[in-house]
């Protein structure tokens, strides 16, 4: 019952106006067995996917998995960064903890090139990120 209500929440979110959901989702959508389905609004993820000029169409399932993967990524990088902060006996994660985590973890190598450059420049343009993705190929 909760799943159905939460599920329709996801669909509505996807079709929301421009996906500019500033208000956080009231409840994390879960299915009956408690597996969290997705907290990130699918509309925003869809916008990111469509920003890639090579992508023609993306199925709903693909968008959903990307959203869930992005969540897992956030959890992972936060935890890895926390290990660095712990060593410094701090209770607040700082930017430098993130930098250390990115350097230390192999899977985050793709971030080294892009994030350090973009984030240092405080650039807001994600289109610049997309251009930089050419470096990865």
């Amino acid at each position, binding site marked *: 019952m909760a799943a159905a209500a939460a599920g329709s929440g996801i669909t509505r979110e996807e079709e929301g106006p421009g996906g500019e959901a500033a208000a956080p989702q009231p409840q994390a959508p879960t*299915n009956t067995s408690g597996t*969290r389905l997705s907290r990130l609004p699918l509309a925003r993820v869809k916008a990111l*996917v469509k920003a890639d000029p090579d992508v023609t169409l993306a199925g709903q399932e693909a968008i959903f*998995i990307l959203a869930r993967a992005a969540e897992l990524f956030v959890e992972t990088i936060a935890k890895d960064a*926390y290990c660095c902060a712990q060593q410094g006996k701090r209770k607040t994660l700082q930017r430098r903890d993130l930098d250390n985590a990115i350097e230390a973890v192999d899977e985050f190598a793709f971030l080294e090139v892009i994030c350090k450059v973009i984030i240092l420049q405080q650039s807001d343009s994600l289109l610049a990120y997309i251009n930089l993705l050419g470096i990865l190929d």
Partner: protein
Amino acid sequence: MAERPEDLNLPNAVITRIIKEALPDGVNISKEARSAISRAASVFVLYATSCANNFAMKGKRKTLNASDVLSAMEEMEFQRFITPLKEALEAYRREQKGKKEASEQKKKDKDKKTDSEEQDKSRDDDNDEDEERLEEEEQNEEEEVDN
């Protein structure tokens, strides 16, 4: 299709909540670190999309599907994500199936009530639902989308 940069960022509130739940109680995160993680997540999606698209093109498909994304995870060396993603996908599919059956049941109930007017109304609803479901698009003809 020109996207405003703000629209390509993931909502701060959600990112913050995900981070806080991943960390032990009492641990905080600076604004800069949170913002950096948010951008990193957007970059992650873009990178994963690009990878997944390569797999779709290899398979001569125009539509990105779930297995393309899973293949991309492997390519990007995020194998540890694959099992939880597969579980989430199963749950998502079950839920979508449940929703579909629920709305079909609703339609049946509507038809039972009145024959003429209600049928016209529900047909309009059907058209809206079909536009929402990309899955339906996949099963039907593939269309080109102008980006």
